[in-house]
């Protein structure tokens, strides 16, 4: 027993860092996470409940807040649905077909990650704004896009469309097409193959992508802020409403709404962790990228 212990002391593994370095790195990482993640989160909840539970719920029950919550849920739901359809279609095209310009298409899908959300918001103003030809025509026909929910959805879709596609592309590429071919050779039609074979094979990856997409859609600020016009009770989403309340110096209300957003993020994180734990094998194909 003691011989073993001595051996350990004398022959340190060649690849191991000195103990001090190890603890320094671990300590630094933990300290960083506490300062930049945990502390702000705690502050959000502490501030939200600073006026007591009653004030907290009163702030959430405010008509403007309720309208913002409702608008955020609706916008996120539509954007996530559209991006799920888009993501599956795009991943299918990239993973199962060979065509010219495929690499370029994949790069394009990543574009929203590298473009500042404010710019994407501006683009929609430039396309649909009142001063443009198209915008003028839309206003003449009483179709509201900018400063209305349509604009919010468009901006959110733009910002969040890579999420589902990026999760599915490597997964579907790794799986190949043999199972689909097998289904076809057994007489299944295109839709039957999709529902019975393709979809079950990608379901956890798809759910994972949808979760990330949803988290981003609900939290989106930049692009939405440009197209929203921040009309209270009409075109204000939760992140925008938090900012408005904060500027009005309504701290409890601002942090109450913020805490709700944080809660949504925490739930997403929880479900994501669960998926990774439960379906790690399938998701491993995603992490390999």
């Amino acid at each position, binding site marked *: 027993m003691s011989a073993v212990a001595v051996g350990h002391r004398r022959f340190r593994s060649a690849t191991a860092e000195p103990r001090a370095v190890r603890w320094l790195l671990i300590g630094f990482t933990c300290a960083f996470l506490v300062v930049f993640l945990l502390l702000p989160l705690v502050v959000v909840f502490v501030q939200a409940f600073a006026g007591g539970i009653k004030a907290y719920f009163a702030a959430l029950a405010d008509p403007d807040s309720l309208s913002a919550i409702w608008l955020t849920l609706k916008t996120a739901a539509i954007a996530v649905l559209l991006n799920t359809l888009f993501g599956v279609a795009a991943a299918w095209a990239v993973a199962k077909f060979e065509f010219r310009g495929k690499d370029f298409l994949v790069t394009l899908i990543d574009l929203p990650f590298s473009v500042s959300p404010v710019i994407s918001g501006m683009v929609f103003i430039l396309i649909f704004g009142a001063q443009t030809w198209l915008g003028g025509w839309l206003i003449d026909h009483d179709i509201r896009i900018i400063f209305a929910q349509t604009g919010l959805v468009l901006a959110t879709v733009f910002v969040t469309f890579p999420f589902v596609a990026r999760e599915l592309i490597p997964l579907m590429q790794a799986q190949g097409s043999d199972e689909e071919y097998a*289904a076809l*050779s057994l007489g299944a039609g295109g839709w039957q193959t999709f529902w019975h074979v393709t979809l079950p094979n990608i379901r956890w990856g798809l759910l994972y992508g949808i979760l990330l997409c949803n988290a981003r859609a609900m939290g989106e600020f930049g692009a939405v802020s440009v197209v929203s016009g921040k009309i209270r009770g009409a075109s204000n989403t939760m992140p925008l409403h938090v900012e408005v309340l904060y500027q009005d110096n309504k701290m409890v209300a601002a942090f109450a709404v913020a805490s709700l957003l944080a809660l949504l993020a925490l739930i997403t994180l929880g479900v994501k962790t669960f998926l990774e734990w439960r379906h790690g094998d399938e998701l491993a194909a995603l992490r390999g990228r």
Partner: protein
Amino acid sequence: MQISIRQLSKSYGSVAALNAIDLDIASGELLALLGPSGSGKTTLLRAIAGLEPIDGGRIRFGDIDATELSVQERRVGFVFQHYALFKHMSVLDNITFGLRVRKRKYRPAREEIRRRGEELLKLVQLGGLEARYPNQLSGGQRQRVALARALAIEPRVLLLDEPFGALDAKVRKELRVWLRQLHDETGYTTVFVTHDQEEALELADRVVVMNAGSIEQVDTPEAILRRPATRFVAEFVERDAAGQYTAAHPPPPRTVHERVARAVRVG
């Protein structure tokens, strides 16, 4: 079902994968497509199944011109090299998939589907494993499930792509004998692809030796061994003291002239 192939051509860009192939397969025959990788044997198999679009030529199943038929309409039983079992379905659901996706008009009743599935499981000697999932089976068992699944649709022809390629040597030998027995029992016209000459010569009624998109010889195993039609065939089936040539280690071209010819053919 008798199969006849006429002038079947396929190229990938400037490389010819199939060079105006003519081939007749007798009803109930067990035929091997033998050749090194890149010889076009798998492309030919997939073209028969309708999984590979072709550039020209015709494929007939008996009296039916199958050239324009879709994969579904051809009703071929295709067994993939890596089985391609549906991972999320039980063994029974895998096997009965082809019956369950039929249009209601042609779909057997639920009990009948189950009965047929269990019958097929017994045929491939996996009775009692219907509730298992593919990842709970050994390689040889998966292969047999894939075969049962292909048989369930009562295929016009059974096509197997490197059926034993992913198995270890011992299982491979057992399955080979078993497949021959199964073929003799069921009588399906069967075509299988292999790069292992021993497998082809031992198992098949006739062997098609392919090279660079063309057929070098179609003959019985005995004739291939005794009277190889071309130098390529002779070298491909040649045995020496050290072992056997396989697709992974094809015999080296002997003369400069032949080396050039080979390089030109392979492209």
